[in-house]
């Protein structure tokens, strides 16, 4: 019980730290941070329920004013920014990523977490993300999709990294990878 609560809180801190890490610039000039990989990792390592709780903890405290969203954003303003859909989709993304990692027990954890990260952390996340951008930026859904697709290559790389990291952690600390224990 205690261990799980602490792990959830510390993974929320991990999402924050990954978002504050220096940005990597893609060839297209769009900056990517590791924050969305933090969301994927919460799901693939902590599992659906606890991963979602960690993400909810992170978002709630960011909305309350901690400037922890990538780029040092925070406060209630995040819900009025074009990223609102992605922020709302984060818990959902972690849930689906965790669910897939846990349910696909018959395949190696690398493949199940890769699938989880792609379906949860990209497909499921982009749906509210695109809707949010289309509302705030006043664009149609298809126009917003074009803008969102700029992030796709970076997110695919992050999904691969997430699967590699989850696999390594599972080898080193199987008991702490709650999605499989």
């Amino acid at each position, binding site marked *: *019980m*205690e*261990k799980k*609560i*602490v*792990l*959830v*809180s*510390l*993974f*929320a*801190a*991990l999402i*924050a*730290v*990954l978002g*504050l*890490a220096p940005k*990597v610039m893609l060839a297209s000039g*769009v*900056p990517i941070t*590791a924050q969305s990989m933090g969301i994927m*990792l919460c799901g693939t*390592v902590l599992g659906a329920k606890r991963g979602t*709780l960690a993400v909810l*903890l*992170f978002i*709630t*405290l960011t909305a*309350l*004013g*901690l*400037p*922890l969203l990538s*780029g*040092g*954003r*925070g*406060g*209630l*303003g*995040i*819900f*009025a*920014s*074009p990223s609102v859909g992605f922020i709302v989709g984060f818990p959902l993304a972690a849930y689906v990523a965790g669910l897939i990692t846990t349910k696909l027990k018959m395949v190696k954890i690398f493949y199940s977490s890769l699938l989880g990260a792609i379906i949860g952390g990209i497909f499921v996340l982009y749906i509210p993300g695109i809707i949010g951008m289309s509302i*705030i*930026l*006043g*664009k149609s859904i298809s*126009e917003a999709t074009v*803008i969102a697709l700029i992030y796709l290559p970076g997110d695919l790389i992050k999904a691969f*990294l997430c699967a590699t*990291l989850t696999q*390594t*952690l599972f080898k*080193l*600390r199987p008991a*702490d990878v709650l999605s499989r224990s």
Partner: protein
Amino acid sequence: MLALRFPQHTWLEKIPASMKLVLLATATSGIFFVETLSIMVLLLVTTIAFQFLLGWQIFKFSLGLLKPLLPFIAIIVIWHLYSGDLGYGALIISRLLLIVTLANIVTCSTKTSEISEIIEKIISPMRLVNINTKAISLSVLIFIRFTPIVLERQKILQLAYKCRSGKRPSWQIIVPLILSIMDDADHVAQALKSRSTLRE
């Protein structure tokens, strides 16, 4: 301290947080009904002038908070230059700036503790359906306390990687970072257990 606050004290801090939140919600919903550019710009200029009246330091600080919106503003400008509908683009940009500025004013003039009190009140009925609200308060505390620690640890790992390889680290330090988090979790959980913090 890890919080978004104005660099100076203002009279806004004396207004109850709940009232500010209700006002903000009302204003934000109302703004979506404004479809005239001149009114939107007028509202934005008034809000910015209001911040200016609060003090030069606060004015500068608030403008800095809008920086992360720049890439989005650039996208909208390019988009509308291309589509030719610049008026609509200007409306979207001023609406975005207005809502984010209003929300920032509320956030920066309200203590985190005040807002967390409101949250505690909101979640308190969850006790009735057997959810341990103590665990929620505890995880909030652990999160706030440990974020700077995890950040510090990440910096140390980056430095160590740089010293040994001469290269800039990126994803290589994430595994050791998470392992150290798992170690921390062991220690903190042990401490919580021995003090039976979570027993109701």
